[in-house]
């Protein structure tokens, strides 16, 4: 089953095993600090921002237009930025590492 490592703002690592659903849901299930996912995962609230580790960017893909619209006006975003609710877990993402980065 797929594993995810979240690195929180204070540097703590939270490992999630058997990750299913999207990354925001995985983070919420594992009480990852800094990921709220208030809107339930429809790209509305912007409370689940992460930066994908460079090694995994190709597999996750870049931000969608809806995500990019948010990132364009937020500080602290870059080409690695994603809303974790928009990244669906799959076997191909087994081992992925993301940094939690609230706006």
């Amino acid at each position: 089953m797929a594993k995810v490592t979240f690195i929180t703002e204070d540097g703590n690592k939270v490992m999630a095993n058997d990750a299913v659903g999207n990354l925001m849901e995985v983070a919420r299930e594992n009480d990852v600090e800094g990921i709220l996912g208030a809107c339930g995962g429809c790209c509305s609230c912007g409370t689940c921002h992460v930066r994908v580790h460079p090694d995994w960017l190709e597999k996750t893909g870049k931000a969608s237009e809806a995500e990019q619209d948010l990132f364009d006006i937020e500080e602290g975003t870059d080409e690695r930025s994603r809303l974790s609710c928009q990244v669906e877990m799959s076997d191909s993402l087994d081992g992925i590492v993301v940094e939690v980065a609230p706006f």
Partner: protein
Amino acid sequence: MLSIELLTGPKVSRVWKLVSISLCNRFRTNILDSYLLGGLFTFMPDIKDSFQEARNNSGIQVTEFNGEKIPFVLGLKDIRKTLKDWQNFSSDHPFKIVPHSEDELRSMRQIPIEMDPPEHTDFRALVEPFFNRPTEPDYMEDMSRLINSMITDIITGREVEVVNEFALPLQCRALARLLKVPESEADQWMEWGMHALTEGSGLEQYTAEQFARAEKQPEDNFFSMLNKAELNGVKLTFEEKQGIANVTFAGGKDTVINVVSSIIVYFAEHPEDLIFLKEDERYIMTACEEFVRYVSPLTAITRTCPHATQVAGHNVPAASRVGLCWPSANRDESVFEEPEKVILDRMPNPHLGFGFGIHNCLGAPQARLIIRSLLRALCEQVKSIELISFEPRIENEESFTRQVGYDRVVVKIS
């Protein structure tokens, strides 16, 4: 619900000139035609997008409130940019956070909505944990029990008036849970009707009494929390506590009631969508956001420009206000495909129904929990909803007219 510290709605019917169908001559024909023609357009009838033309032409619609011209920003992306730029679009203008001034309706600044950073940041951080409690499992279970029991009570096969007999008590009883006060307090809030903020001192007197009572006999509730609270080692002033309490009661009342009532009407007209909703738990989340987007019960929040600036390419003089028009953003064709359709699994759905940024709706966790719990309860318990009659709630301003919900909805639920 708004940028918005709470779903601060058009609070006073006298001020916002909300008129029922029988008084709304200008639109009466359209609404009645829709109703009589088989109810095809009963759910949010054809006053659908008052801002569409202006949004697509100039991005701005100049509106007028009590002689003051206020340009409403209409495009979603322009509104987001405006929300971010609090230095040029300030919230620090007491009584002016909504287009109609509220200086005759309250005596103090609402907090934290009528503040800018860094003051805003401190107050928001102080109260936010209390308002985030609806994300806790125990709280969610309690809300689910409440709403399930209220749905059970109205599944009688007999006529029930949804706005006053279901949505209003639901909002009030849910608020009692949020504030951790006895549910009996909700009886008084129900008597205030759709709007907590009305002329006279009712709300302010009530909250002042609650702070005094909590001072004498501290309890684990909202009022005692604020009595104990300190910022930078200093206790809050009476006026600051009143300002927080004021927006807590005034915001999120009519807006939540309007969304709840609209959901009942929608499923009466679209029973197939209730069946669809039962298919996947994730639809509860997406449907919640879609109803908030579609209903957009709050029309606008304003900002004041301390300096001359530009918004959406238009010049704005110093000291003037601009409006952030949520329903227009939420119908923006450049963002939403088929914005006039309710799509319960819409994804992505970057609506601004709860505002965005530092002033995003403080009551959003509560509003979302109410809506999600309602949707689950409808899925679990309701077979059919028969719409008997309704009166849309129309906001009729000098510069626009739009439906924000319902004044009255009679249904039979089985």
